[in-house]
């Protein structure tokens, strides 16, 4: 089965390299060849691989996905507004089935030499700003999924914030999947390079329009130079037939601050693979996450925070609500390398199980190779607090409202950490609406 998957993608790559990727600069051509070679070697990971113990990619490997056809012509602005955050001022970049859709996008004028646009437009340029950055954090040799994306991506957003520039307006990147008749795959790719002392907020928003079997294989690379700050929202609300396998790779230089909010609401199978390397002294990393899954949804958050240098601080806080037969996985590793003294790391995972059949595998891990560090971790699993429900009802609040209040309180602990108020409110609303779709009636 795995051999078939390898053959399928290797054959597909031959065609892809001759057509879509024919105009690639040589460095990218070499990168892609390296990537497909790597995939041909390993195929998709199996459950024998410790990092994939709880998540079965068998169905993905067996499905002959085809590269999703361009579909931006069938999308109207109204469709997009229904799906997106129309309310507040963002610079909006829309990609449909992995290709930039300029007619749906609304970039705002940005000052200060900021380079922003779609990768495909930047690639042919002789002074390509991507060379040396793209593929440097998400290396094709690190694993099959990053390799697959590297071999096949055609577009995505690139943002380069020059030293000292602060972007107040969030960059909202919509990766819209429009499934077709057959099972389709798309390969969104995001690259953010934050210069010294710069600041930016990026929202990656994975959405589906209509149902159908679709596979999103996303990769995001974020490089933070000294003293820079990036806030990164990754919102996954794809269709219930979708598979979403995403990788986020972050490297932080001295005194930089990275703050992430990974929110998973949709998809039949979701895997978010996050690696943040604190590669300069005094770097600060905050990973927040929230997931809601019901029916037979499977959501796997696999994170690694690598304290490679001293005086780093990290906080990781993931929470989730699981209902019906849904399955959640939280596997969070904090590594403190030798010499990374004065590291401070906290890690927490809290889960709310609304049904007896829902399941969570929660595995916080610390690997500490330095002696002067402060690290803590913990996880919990519980139900909606019956005493709290009764207390609210005893004051006249109906059961459905009482449940939604408690769920909102549960999620607010995560969303409260989102820096931009308007963004926080919209995400709060999305979360509440999603949580209320899990059993409206109850005990």
């Amino acid at each position, binding site marked *: 089965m795995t051999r078939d998957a390898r053959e399928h993608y290797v054959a597909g790559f031959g065609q892809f390299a001759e057509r879509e990727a024919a105009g690639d600069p040589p460095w990218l051509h070499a990168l892609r060849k390296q990537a497909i070679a790597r995939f041909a070697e390993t195929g998709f990971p199996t459950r024998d691989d410790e990092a994939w113990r709880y998540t079965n990619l068998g169905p993905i490997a067996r499905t002959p996905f085809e590269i999703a056809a361009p579909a931006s012509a069938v999308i109207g602005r109204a469709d997009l507004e229904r799906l997106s955050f129309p309310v507040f001022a963002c610079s909006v970049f829309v990609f449909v089935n992995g290709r930039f859709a300029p007619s749906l996008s609304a970039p705002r004028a940005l000052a200060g030499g900021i380079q922003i646009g779609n990768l495909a437009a930047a690639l042919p340029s002789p002074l390509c700003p991507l060379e040396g950055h793209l593929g440097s954090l998400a290396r094709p040799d690190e694993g099959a999924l990053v390799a697959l994306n590297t071999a096949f991506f055609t577009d995505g957003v690139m943002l380069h914030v020059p030293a000292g520039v602060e972007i107040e307006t969030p960059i909202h990147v919509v990766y819209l999947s429009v499934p077709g008749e057959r099972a389709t795959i798309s390969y969104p790719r995001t690259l953010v390079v934050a210069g010294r002392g710069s600041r930016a907020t990026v929202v990656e928003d994975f959405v589906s329009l209509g149902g159908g079997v679709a596979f999103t294989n996303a990769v995001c690379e974020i490089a933070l130079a000294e003293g820079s700050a990036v806030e990164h929202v990754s919102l996954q609300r794809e269709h219930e037939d979708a598979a979403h396998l995403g990788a986020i790779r972050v490297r932080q230089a001295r005194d930089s601050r990275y703050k992430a909010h990974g929110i998973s609401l949709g998809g039949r199978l979701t895997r978010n693979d996050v690696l943040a390397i604190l590669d300069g002294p005094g770097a600060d990393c905050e990973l927040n996450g929230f997931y809601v899954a019901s029916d037979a949804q499977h959501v796997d958050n696999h994170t690694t925070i690598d304290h490679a240098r001293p005086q780093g601080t990290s906080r990781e806080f993931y929470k989730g609500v699981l209902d019906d037969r849904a399955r959640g996985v939280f596997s969070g590793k904090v590594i403190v390398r030798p010499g990374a003294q004065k590291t401070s790391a906290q890690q927490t995972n809290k889960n709310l199980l609304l049904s007896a059949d829902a399941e969570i595998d929660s595995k916080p891990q610390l690997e500490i190779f330095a002696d002067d560090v402060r690290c803590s971790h913990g996880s919990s699993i519980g139900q909606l*607090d*019956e*005493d*709290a429900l*009764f*207390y*609210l*009802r*005893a*004051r*006249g*609040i*109906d*059961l459905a*409202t*009482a449940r939604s*209040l*408690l769920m*909102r*309180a*549960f999620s*607010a*602990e995560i969303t409260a950490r989102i820096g931009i108020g308007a963004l926080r409110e919209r995400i709060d609303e999305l979360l509440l609406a999603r949580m209320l779709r899990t059993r409206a009636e109850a*005990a």
Partner: protein
Amino acid sequence: MSSEILLQVEGLCARAAGNEILRGLDLTVRAGEVHAVMGPNGSGKSTLANVLAGRPGVEVTAGKVLYRGRNLVEMAPEERAREGIFLAFQYPVEIPGVTNLYFLKAAANAVRKHRGLEELDAMDFLSLARRKMKLVEMDEKMMSRAINEGFSGGEKKRNEVLQMAILEPVLSILDETDSGLDIDALGIVSRGVNSLRSAERSMIVITHYQRLLDHIVPDRVHVLAGGRIVRSGGKELALELEEQGYAWIEGGAGAA
């Protein structure tokens, strides 16, 4: 002159956590009356409060409970609250992430809507809440804190009485509201409760000790033991209990 019967409990039997707790309890409360229910630990005082408020898991196995002529047992807890029943919790629940203000406004409007009154907007509610907070000498800062989170024992009980003052219930059940209060807090809480006494409102004051009844003077005192009311009398019965303790009951009717 006898006023309207608000609550009529006859032969009430109830189970909680698999144990038979109430075993044939009778109690009649008329409009405007304050009844004290006293008794030793484990006699069924809190179970009675929970049956009246409708706590899930407390099962009525026999008897009837009529509130203003309606079968209370069939009503959901929120419906009872909207119909004017209020339980001041012995252990008020801490709910992180929901502010006291949001909670009280949601509760007040749920009750108002049920009574056919216009719902209050944020400004109107805040001015109502401010007035009522004076009654229990509560700091306005408490409103922006999460429900009961990190409140002291006294603050929690004052918050209960504040809720009572805002919701203006018909029948209040105070479940050991005096427990964990120092003498100053007891005075504040009692003044709040007393200010709500009227010819229409009734209260069932559940307590282990007579000292609360110095502040909230009852019309009737009942002694609960072994899941039944074994003695009823006027307010002087509470003093008698204070002197004699509950030993005489436990040796007698409490044996069941």
